[in-house]
Every structure is written in structure tokens, then in C-alpha cells.
């Protein structure tokens, strides 16, 4: 961990790669349908001729930029650019609608940089012990984690608890369509070949979030987002001040993000959701989460960028990718002949440490680059006449959805899902529970079936499901999140009535 590695991370080439990666990643991540995985996968061959550390820095920079870039579409178009930005739509879009879009984008940048740094620092100092945490999570913990995620969805759909649960359950059913991973049965395809692939998360994301927005935009002559007469540039200062005040939120969200990122398969969407829910739970009176509360955006963006650093922990220490982009990067590493494992941090030291320093540099570079790109993105979305914006976004959704699996039927499914999402959304069934159900469904199912198999085999079914300390903690959190809102409302009513009684 000596300074020599830091110096080698500072070579002009590496800095240029970091900057290029962050910029390219941000732009790619902001386009719904283009994922970080895709971007990283295409650029891997270029890295063959590079030094391993430089290659890693480029790929890592793209990855972290893409996770940040997802916030643009989330805030300005109510469509997460990547699944990690789902929770950013909760407060991002309301903020944009009331004219605070530029503030939201700036906040997202600050939060992403902060979260990314925490994640990278955790990777730097705590990788080996953190990897043990990753291993301690077995199938049952993943199962309870997904149930926890669903309870969050429910508790976030205030006033519409039942509809939120309905959406979540429906999303989970959608996730079972196609060939079952765990048993090779074909489910819910009704004999159609096109449905064998099931509903991809990214396609469903675009359909359920973006198409309803477009349908609504064409229907009314109003402008898309309120626009101030002068695009103030002082909002960056305002954003910085807000971010400083929200220190605690940022730190807590980044830690949550890092921890969730460590768990292979969990991903940025879960991290954002958990961080958002925690931020909401510790809201000060007067804060209105879900209606454009800055703390909401900061929580999710800090958490999802922290998963970048966190995800590298199992990838580098155990050779098990934390997220799909990690899997691609792992492949690139293997070809370079880099062996992953705890020894990587000792003997292979220089590559890993140079990479981590490079990642930190890239994250820092994301601050000026991100703010700049963010302002430009905001200006263009806000000033482009709606008549051009709508078809452009529509075209983007088509090309983006197609590019996922090179399939036209995916695009058709996306559009149909979009219309469906618009219809049910009009009557109180929001898109987020359905998408989150789609994401969490496979995790819940596999966790359940695997735990059942192991538990039945060892004659320890009850102990398997309820006896392990980590699962018990997660179950406790689940119950807390389900009953806390009702509990605190009850307490408020009691306080109010006792005050009235006194007077």
C-alpha cells in the first residue's frame, strides 16, 4: 500500500483513462437501455494491449460513471437510466417537476462522488475482512433480504399499501415467466416462443417508467418541466450547502451501499432502496419524502455509487463477481493473467492498489465532470421543445431495448408493458413496486428453494429459516419497516390527543 502505487496511478495515461472512462460512463449510463455492463463489455478488447492496472482503471471509471449517469434520466424523465437509479426517481422527478431539476442533478453528483469514495476506501482498507461478510450470506439471508426489500416497497407506498403489495407480487410473478433457473421447467409462457426469455429487468424498467411518461407528455400541451427564466449557475453552491448539512445521511447511505454491494447478486437497486428507506425513517419533521426531498436523492445516489467499490470486494478477494459489470471486469483480469484471491492484496499488490487509487481518482474527477455534464444535460432536456423530446426519447427506448438482447420482440414487450404500466398507474398502482418485484423475485425464489433443500436435507428446516443470526437481524428490520410507520403515526396521534386533553 505504499506511495509508489499511488504515484503510478497518477500517470498522465491513467488520469486520461480515468477521465475518459468517467465521461463515457456517465453518458452511457444516462441513456435508458444502455447498461454499464454493455459499455464495459465492449471496451474489454481494447484493454488487452494495456497494462492490467490501466485497463482496470478504465473499466472501473466507466462503471462508476454509468451508475452516476443513471440519475439523469431518473430525475429528468422519471426513467432510471440503470436499475441502480430506481429509487432516485422517487424524489428526483418531483424535484424536476417543480423546477429544481438542476439542483437535483447537482445533488446527485455530490452524493455519487461521496458514496463512490466511501466504497473505494472500504475496498482499499477493509477488503479481506469484508469478503468474509459476503461469504456469511447464504441462500437464506438472500431470501430474507429480498423479503425485506419487498416490505420496503410496501412501506414506501404510503396510503396505498395494498396496491404496493399487489404490484410487488405481480412483479414477482412476472419474474417467473420463462425457463426456471432452478428446475428447467417452463413457466407462464402459454406456449409462446417469444416469452421463453421472460421479462428482462432493463426492458421492463424502460417500459414501465418511460412509456407512461411519454404517453402523458403527448396528451397535454404543457411544457415538460418547469423552467426558470435564467438557468442559475449558483445552484451548485446551493447544492453543496445542502450536501454539507446532510452529512449523516450521506455517510449512512454510503455504508449501506458498500455493504449491499459486497453481497454478490444484490446490486445497486437494492442498495438505493434500503438507503432511501432508512433516510425516510430518520426524516426530520417537515421533510416530505416522495415529493421532492433532497435527502432522498442523496441517499440513493450515495448508496448506489458505493456499491461500485463494495462490489469489487468479492470480485477481487474471492473471484466472485459482485455485479454483472464486475463479472466482465473479472473476465478481463483473468485474461491478463491476474489471479484473484487474498494474495492479490499481498503479493500482486501493485496492480490492485494502483487500480484502487485510480478508482478514487476517477471518482474525484467525476465531481467536476459530472457537474458539467449534468448542467448540460439539464439545459438540453429543459430547453428542447417537447415535440422533439418525446420522439427522441421514444426512439432511444426502442434502440436501447433492442440492444439488450438483439431482439425486436423485447421492444414490443416493452411497449406493451409500458401501456399496461400507464393504465394501472392511473389508478394507483405505481411502477416501482412492479419493477422491484421483478428484480427481487429471482433472488427470493432461489434463496427460498435452496434454503428449503438444504434445510430438509439436514433435518433443520426451522433452524435454517429462523436460526441464523444474520437472518434474524434482517427479519427484525423487516418487521420494523412494516410496523414502524403505523407505530409512529399511532404515537403522534396519542401525543396530539394528550395535548388536546391538557388544554
Amino acid at each position, binding site marked *: 500500500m505504499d506511495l509508489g502505487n499511488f504515484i503510478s496511478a497518477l500517470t498522465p495515461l491513467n488520469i486520461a483513462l480515468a477521465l475518459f472512462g468517467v465521461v463515457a460512463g456517465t453518458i452511457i449510463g444516462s441513456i435508458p437501455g444502455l447498461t454499464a455492463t454493455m459499455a464495459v463489455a465492449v471496451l474489454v478488447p481494447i484493454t488487452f494491449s494495456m497494462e492490467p492496472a490501466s485497463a482496470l482503471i478504465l473499466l472501473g471509471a466507466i462503471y462508476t460513471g454509468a451508475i452516476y449517469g443513471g440519475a439523469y434520466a431518473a430525475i429528468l424523465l422519471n426513467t432510471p437510466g440503470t436499475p441502480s437509479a430506481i429509487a432516485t426517481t422517487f424524489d428526483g422527478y418531483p424535484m424536476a417537476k417543480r423546477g429544481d431539476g438542476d439542483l437535483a442533478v447537482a445533488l446527485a453528483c455530490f452524493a455519487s462522488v461521496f458514496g463512490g469514495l466511501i466504497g473505494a476506501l472500504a475496498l482499499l482498507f477493509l477488503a479481506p475482512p469484508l469478503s468474509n461478510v459476503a461469504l456469511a450470506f447464504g441462500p437464506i439471508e438472500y431470501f430474507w433480504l429480498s423479503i425485506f426489500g419487498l416490505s420496503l416497497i410496501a412501506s414506501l407506498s404510503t396510503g396505498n399499501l395494498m396496491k404496493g403489495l399487489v404490484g410487488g407480487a405481480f412483479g414477482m410473478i412476472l419474474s417467473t415467466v420463462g425457463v426456471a433457473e432452478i428446475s428447467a421447467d417452463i413457466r407462464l409462457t402459454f406456449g409462446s416462443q417469444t416469452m421463453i426469455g421472460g421479462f428482462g429487468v432493463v426492458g421492463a424498467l424502460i417500459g414501465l417508467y418511460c412509456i407512461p411518461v411519454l404517453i402523458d407528455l403527448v396528451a397535454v400541451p404543457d411544457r415538460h418541466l418547469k423552467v426558470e427564466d435564467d438557468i442559475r449557475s449558483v445552484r451548485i453552491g446551493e447544492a453543496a450547502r445542502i450536501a454539507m448539512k446532510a452529512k449523516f445521511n450521506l455517510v449512512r447511505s454510503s455504508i449501506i451501499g458498500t455493504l449491499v454491494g459486497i453481497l454478490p447478486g444484490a446490486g445497486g437497486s437494492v442498495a438505493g432502496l434500503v438507503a432511501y428507506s432508512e433516510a425516510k425513517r430518520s426524516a426530520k419533521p417537515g421533510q416530505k419524502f416522495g415529493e421532492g426531498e433532497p435527502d432522498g436523492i442523496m441517499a440513493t445516489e450515495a448508496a448506489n455509487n458505493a456499491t461500485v467499490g463494495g462490489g469489487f470486494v468479492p470480485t477481487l478477494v474471492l473471484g466472485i463477481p459482485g455485479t454483472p459489470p464486475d463479472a466482465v471486469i473479472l473476465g478481463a483480469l483473468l485474461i491478463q493473467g491476474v489471479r484473484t484471491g487474498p494474495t492479490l492484496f499481498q503479493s500482486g499488490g501493485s496492480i490492485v492498489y494502483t487500480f484502487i487509487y485510480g478508482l478514487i481518482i476517477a471518482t474525484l474527477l467525476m465531481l467536476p465532470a459530472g457537474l458539467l455534464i449534468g448542467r448540460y444535460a439539464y439545459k438540453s432536456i429543459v430547453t428542447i421543445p417537447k*415535440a422533439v423530446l418525446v*420522439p427522441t426519447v421514444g426512439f432511444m427506448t426502442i434502440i436501447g431495448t433492442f440492444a439488450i438482447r438483439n431482439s425486436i420482440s423485447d421492444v414490443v414487450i416493452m411497449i406493451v408493458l409500458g401501456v399496461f404500466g400507464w393504465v394501472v398507474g392511473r389508478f394507483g398502482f405505481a411502477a416501482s413496486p412492479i419493477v422491484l418485484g421483478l428484480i427481487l423475485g429471482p433472488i427470493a425464489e432461489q434463496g427460498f428453494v435452496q434454503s428449503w433443500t438444504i434445510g430438509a436435507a439436514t433435518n433443520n428446516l426451522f433452524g435454517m429459516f429462523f436460526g441464523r443470526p444474520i437472518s434474524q437481524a434482517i427479519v427484525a428490520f423487516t418487521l420494523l419497516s412494516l410496523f414502524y410507520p403505523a407505530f409512529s403515526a399511532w404515537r403522534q396521534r396519542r401525543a396530539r390527543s394528550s395535548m388536546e386533553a391538557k388544554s
Partner: protein
Amino acid sequence: MKKAPAIKSEANIGSLVISALFVIAGIVTLYDTTGYSDIDSKVFPRTVAIVLIICATIAFITNFLKPTDTGGFGSGIWWRRITLVVTMLLACFAMPYVGFLPAGAIAFAGGLVAAMHDQWSMKTFLLYGGSGAVVMIAFFALFKYALLVPLP
């Protein structure tokens, strides 16, 4: 005496209908599970379908007893909405025959017409159509040549 709230508002009927549809979806899922060969694949869908049916039923009942007035299709202009969606679907079906760019142009044109609330003029026609062409070609090139996606 206050009149009971009308249960016939559009928002309410819509909610009821959709809740009912979700219940049906749950039943369909349950029916499908009977055709699976492996017991492992049945457990999860069955559980979730039952949860869906229960929650959708509760939502139905709550909505019936306490009708809401929020929601509904709103006051938007229908032909524009339909144009947008139909042209996008048309573009998909046309794609294998005419290729990606022409199909995309169909979708773009549809969206443009649907979203254009102001009066058309020569200037706007050229400007919007032109910028649309630029955008489409740029994205096409990006995806096909930089990202190497095999667009038809």
C-alpha cells in the same frame, strides 16, 4: 344529511376493475403451476400468486367501501396518445422488412406528430424533422459501429 359519495366515478371503477384483473392473474398463475414437473418450480409462484390474490382482493374491498376520487384517465388528448403507441408498435413490426433506420423514422414521426401541440410551419417542420434525422443517425451509428449491436 350528507349524501353518500358516488361510487361510480371513473377512478373508482378503474381501481376495482384493475384489482379484479390482478386477482384473475393470480388465478391464472395458480392454474399454470399445475403443469410443472418439478415441485421446486411450483412453490414460489403458488405462494406469490396467493399473496397477490389476497392483496388484490383486499384492495378491491377497500376501494369498494371507501371510494377514491383521485386518479382516472385524466383530461389528456386521446388521439395523440394512441398515435404515439401505435407508431412505435408499427415500427417494431416493420423492422425486419425495412431495416432499423426507416422503422425508427416511423416511430419518430409518430412521436413528433403526437407531441406537437403548436402550429406547424415550414421552419418547425424542417427544424424538427432535420434534428430528428440527425439524432436517429447518430444513435444508429453509435449502436451499430461503436457498440457493435447488430441492428437490422
